[in-house]
């Protein structure tokens, strides 16, 4: 085995081009991992599918929704829930930290941000697959896009964009707890109140006043309302800009936080 060349000939800096290539390599790695664990994909899809069946056929009859069928009302909420619960960034990063894989990456002349960006982008690809499955199940249960294909695509884009921003929050979580099992629970519990105290499953107007104040202001409601307007019709711009603001806000806070956590870990 011959040793490598003159150190002076070694590329010194991380360039934008090398960063993009590193991100692509890490994203591909994570997509390979997703492809090798179809059971994980199945189980993260079963949960929203069960929710569709449970809410449409069990609770749905008792829930009054203004101007639309319950399936049409519910599915935007289920889409958002699918993306928020289905993310694997926290667990996957904690797993890499625990296994030594992360030390390997850090010892390589690659862009450190690629580890995080490759992870969150792979999660987005996952979300596309699970959203497609959940949409199909929703349509079997009576859900329809009543507002045209362009608006439907915009709705999905909005969910994926928010999901991407949210996965940076998950990244911070995973890098903070550093243990895969803890990351699993820590990633699940805090989302719970946001999903249920929102307009995802029932109209906010049916909640007690103090909870309405929270439910109206929080990002899950905002995103669900935007998606509902885009898929079912109705005034959308109000919810759209608020969703965009939340998405941008999440990115502005959690991208730098995750990167600095990663550097310090």
């Amino acid at each position: 085995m011959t040793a490598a060349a003159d150190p002076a000939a070694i590329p010194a800096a991380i360039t934008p081009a090398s960063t993009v290539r590193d991100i692509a390599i890490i994203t591909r790695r994570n997509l390979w991992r997703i492809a090798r664990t179809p059971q994980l994909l199945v189980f993260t899809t079963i949960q929203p599918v069960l929710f569709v069946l449970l809410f449409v056929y069990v609770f749905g009859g008792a829930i009054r929704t203004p101007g639309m069928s319950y399936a049409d009302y519910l599915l935007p909420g289920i889409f958002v829930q699918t993306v928020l619960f289905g993310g694997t960034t926290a667990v996957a990063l904690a797993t890499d930290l625990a296994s030594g894989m992360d030390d390997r990456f850090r010892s390589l002349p690659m862009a450190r941000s690629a580890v995080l960006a490759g992870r969150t982008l792979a999660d987005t690809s996952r979300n596309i697959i699970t959203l497609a499955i959940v949409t199909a199940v929703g349509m079997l249960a009576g859900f329809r896009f009543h507002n045209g294909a362009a608006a439907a695509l915009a709705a999905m884009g909005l969910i994926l964009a928010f999901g991407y921003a949210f996965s940076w929050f998950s990244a911070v979580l995973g890098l903070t707890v550093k243990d895969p099992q803890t990351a699993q629970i820590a990633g699940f519990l805090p989302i719970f109140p946001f999903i249920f105290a929102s307009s995802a499953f029932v109209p906010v107007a049916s909640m007690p006043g103090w909870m309405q104040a929270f439910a109206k202001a929080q990002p899950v409601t905002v995103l669900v309302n935007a998606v509902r307007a885009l898929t079912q019709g109705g005034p959308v711009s109000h919810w759209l800009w608020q969703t965009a603001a939340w998405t941008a806000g999440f990115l502005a806070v959690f991208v730098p936080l995750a990167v600095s956590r990663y550097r310090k870990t």
Partner: protein
Amino acid sequence: MNDTTLGPVIEAWRIRKAFGPTQALGGVDLAAERGQVLALLGPNGAGKTTLVRILATLLRQDSGQARIAGLDTVTDATRVRSLIGLSGQFAAVDDLLTGYQNLEMIGQLYRLSTAEARSRAADLIERFGLTSAAGRLARTYSGGMRRRLDLAASLIARPPVLILDEPTTGLDPSTRLEVWNTVDALAAGGAAVLLTTQYLEEADRLAHRIAVLDHGLVIATGTASQLKDKTGGDLVEVRPGSAGEFDQVVAALRPLAGRLAQDRERLRIRIPAPDGATTLRAVLGLLDHAGVAVHDIGVRRPSLDDVFLALTGRGATSDPTAPPTAAPPPRRAGRKAVRSRT
């Protein structure tokens, strides 16, 4: 290979590192040249892994400087990373990728072109005997196969500096021997290799130079034979089978009384033997004359364990997991035993 860089390619000066109140490294100096294997020998908690992590740019020292091929590990970290191959204590391979995919990915992240990464991956797969497993997910690999894959990954960029943190911990004897042969070949090919080990025979077998690390300080450096000289050369060791025999042996060896080193706890008596066999013959004569039975007797070269004992007053293997041996280490002068059971 370009030999314009003269002098050490791995250098550490006065490296200090503390974790909170605990001092991990208390001012460590090290140097290794091309073609050299430097073994960092020490028990668990001596600071070996901390030093490795600093040299591999994974951790920043509190003070002092580390350089790889003349490049500072802090200010020139990216270039340093392209010059080192790291293989850690825990095999860092992706379980859900195939062996081949693991190597291809690491090669690409070392900035090899995709074609180059693939051809080198294929070469390494063959060289490390993983051909039949190349297309299988790494999670199906045995411990030894994973370690081989991990080592192969650290070699894919043909780095001039290899940093191996306890590369044989937990390996079966035949895999350990393979790793040893690989390290030999790497050094012969001109790489500088820093390896940490708790195994005395491993340092003895592989290293051109050994640095003994204890409580974050290098307490001795030198070749294996230089270190052994510190304990004063060959000795005759008598091992009585019981405490009663121990006393009989001591009585029988009274003519040599001034030279006896008695260790009643371990049932061991040692007599310095600068002239080897002559001393052994004298000891055997005295024991025969007194009609004393012993469990074992022989001329013994000091082991690195003795060195550690001489340097620190403690054995190196305080760790309960005893160092397993792969094969009779060729460079080591083992015990030349003469058994006498009278």
